[in-house]
């Protein structure tokens, strides 16, 4: 388990920095009123991430970046499931787009990225990358 006092702050800090960037871009393009929800969302998200990241649970450990070996496995399985769900949704969207004669390129892009990521995963984490 990583002891990560600063790790817990990393994601909220990135959210604050990213949120500030989005807020500034929105202020420049559309004015203050449009930027207020974005700034509020970023602030709430960062606070929620930090608070939840301190909890004594698997999710808290993942958000707080202090995972141990079992939690790494849990996270990898959850990411795998999310990948399968994404590919399934992409395939479903592709079939619906064909049926409706809509553009299929967004779904081809999603499925292509999934396929390339899978192959890259095999190369990166395969026999020579496994520890």
């Amino acid at each position, binding site marked *: 388990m990583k002891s990560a006092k600063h790790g817990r702050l990393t994601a909220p800090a990135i959210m604050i920095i990213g949120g500030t960037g989005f807020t500034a871009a929105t202020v420049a393009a559309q004015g203050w009123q449009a930027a207020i929800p974005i700034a509020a969302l970023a602030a709430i998200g960062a606070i929620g991430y930090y608070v939840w990241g301190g909890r*004594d649970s698997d999710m808290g450990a993942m958000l707080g970046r202090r995972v141990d070996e079992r*939690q790494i496995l849990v996270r990898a399985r959850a990411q795998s499931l999310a990948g399968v769900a994404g590919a399934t949704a992409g395939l479903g969207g592709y079939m619906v787009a064909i049926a409706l004669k809509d553009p299929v390129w967004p779904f081809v892009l999603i499925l292509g990225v999934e396929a390339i990521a899978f192959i890259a995963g095999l190369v990166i984490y395969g026999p020579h990358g496994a520890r």
Partner: protein
Amino acid sequence: MRNRVREERAQRGISQAEIAAALGVSRQTVISIESGRYSPSLPLAFRIARFFDSTVDKMFDPEDEVDP
């Protein structure tokens, strides 16, 4: 995989949180190991065995061990 973590811990009067801190894992992982839902990695199994002044083969007993 069956193991003796819960029994050894109870004999010594150590809490799950204490052994988790000593082993460098989360309390949830200790709970999962004790209940047999999670089989620890070899390095963690050695750390557990050393913590209890025992050996890996005394601490862990695979249920599905195949007879030679």
